């Protein structure tokens, strides 16, 4: 069994080696950013200028084109981090730790953006900025999880220990993810349940749904690009004492 897996294993190790990942991730980062940035611009114009207003909420609903993509991307990013944390803890892949470290600031801002845009949307819609509802509270907990990861990684000086502690916190906090996702179904929340459903009926007119789906796809692309760009700098920083990084940046000693 172990023997038959050897080529796959070797390929995986070579593929995740920092210099190789640095090299192959470059076109992906640029491509995703170009496509995502353009699509986001189009989706915003579409959502802000051309989509009709909501018969109940008026124009305030246009916040949805920021709120839903950022919330959804923050959950997807957390899921990615949890999978990466398992890879880090089980197979001790250096790249996995770098990816997790650089997902933290991105996830933190996505979660904050979802909370802030939701609060601003809540004022004209519910009459309050904040309410201790299950969806909002579990999302706030996710924000604290990201802050906690950042704090732990910064506080521990020894790199390996910091990476390990962060990966464990990611996995501990993973229980919060299904709570966020299904809070609107499990409890009677002020927050409405999902409008877009993969199974079942999507209760949204096409003129609003199309720019929303586009802005979601665009946000996913931009977030992926951002994580790639950040990871690439993290690779250069952690491998700064190696020859290939010094060659890459053109900073070399006297040889």
């Amino acid at each position, binding site marked *: 069994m172990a023997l038959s897996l050897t080529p796959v294993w070797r390929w995986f190790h070579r593929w995740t080696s920092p210099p190789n990942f640095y090299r192959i991730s470059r076109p992906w980062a640029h491509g995703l950013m170009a496509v995502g940035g353009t699509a986001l611009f189009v989706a915003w114009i579409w959502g802000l200028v051309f989509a009709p207003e909501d018969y109940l909420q008026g124009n305030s609903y246009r916040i949805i084109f920021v709120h839903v993509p950022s919330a959804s991307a923050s959950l997807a990013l957390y899921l990615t981090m949890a999978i990466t944390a398992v890879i880090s803890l089980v197979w001790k892949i250096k790249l996995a730790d770098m990816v997790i470290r650089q997902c933290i600031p991105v996830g933190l801002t996505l979660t904050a953006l979802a909370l802030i845009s939701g609060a601003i949307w809540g004022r004209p819609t519910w009459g309050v900025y904040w309410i201790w509802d299950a969806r909002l509270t579990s999302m706030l907990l996710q924000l604290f999880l990201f802050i906690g990861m950042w704090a732990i990684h910064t506080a521990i000086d020894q790199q390996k220990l910091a990476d390990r502690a962060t990966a464990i916190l990611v996995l501990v906090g993973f229980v919060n993810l299904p709570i966020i996702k299904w809070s609107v179904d499990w409890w009677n929340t002020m927050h409405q349940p999902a409008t877009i459903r993969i199974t079942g009926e999507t209760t949204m007119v096409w003129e609003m749904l199309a720019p929303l789906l586009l802005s979601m796809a665009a946000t996913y692309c931009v977030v992926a690009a951002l994580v790639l760009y950040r990871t690439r700098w993290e690779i250069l920083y952690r491998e*700064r004492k190696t020859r290939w990084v010094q060659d890459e940046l053109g900073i070399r000693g006297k040889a």
Partner: protein
Amino acid sequence: MGYFDSFADFVRMGNHGIFVWSVYAITVLTILGHWLGLRLQRRRVINELQRLKKRGHL
């Protein structure tokens, strides 16, 4: 202009302008913040390497 009758209507967003526009402004600032963050990461690596070089560790 698109769904709206005039540019003024578009800005007003039926009295929800302040809510809609503040959300989009915060989002743009967040994106700019991330762009700055990437510049800082770049600075950090280059500074660290130049420091090592100066001390003769390279």
